[in-house]
């Protein structure tokens, strides 16, 4: 889970989402070292800010 300060938002329609970052060091890649950084986001979830 994650936490987010949303006090600054105006009431009304909006959305929330998360982005995850994966950092993976590949073994046996043929390179001295191979590190892949992959950032992937969720679909936005529509909400109504109260």
């Amino acid at each position, binding site marked *: 889970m*994650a936490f987010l300060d949303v006090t600054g938002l105006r009431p009304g329609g909006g959305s929330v989402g998360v*982005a995850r970052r*994966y950092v993976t060091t590949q073994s046996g890649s043929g390179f001295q070292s*191979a590190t892949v950084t992959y950032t*992937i986001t969720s679909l936005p979830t529509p909400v109504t800010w109260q």
Partner: protein
Amino acid sequence: MMVPRIAMIMVLSAWTGCLDSGVSSVDVPASQLTIEPTIIDADAAPPDGMVPVVVQFFQANKYVKLSSATLTIDNVAVPYGSMGYTARIPMVSSGGVITFTYTRAGVPTSFTYRVPPRPTITSPTANEVVVRSVNLMISYASASGQGVRPWRRTPRSAPPAASSPTTGWPSST
């Protein structure tokens, strides 16, 4: 109006040239290189079906470019630019693989990367009425990852709130 634009282009060109001039070109086997691809999958359904990729090479911890070897990602040629080797590649669904291929003197060195799962938010739920609190809890279906960055949107008509943070890595579990 044109003068500032031209000046900006000249400044950017000079800046790019400065960055590029300090980068060594190398012609070495893959086994002597560190490769660091960065992929930003920020849209589950991008209009062009592509995602941006930046790849950087290092030799002995020094940023380098390839003098004769080439890089392809899923058979897409990746040219060198001021930020490294950059391209937009066809999006691969979670669980699919991306293949990076370094070819030097006709000899390819490849490795594959499996695309991680896209996080799915479980709370708040769609169309839920959410109280604007200091610590809105966002839950999501999880897999291992290094960090999570929540984001929120308001209607386009709403002005940005100066005191509202939009960046940073909040606590996550």
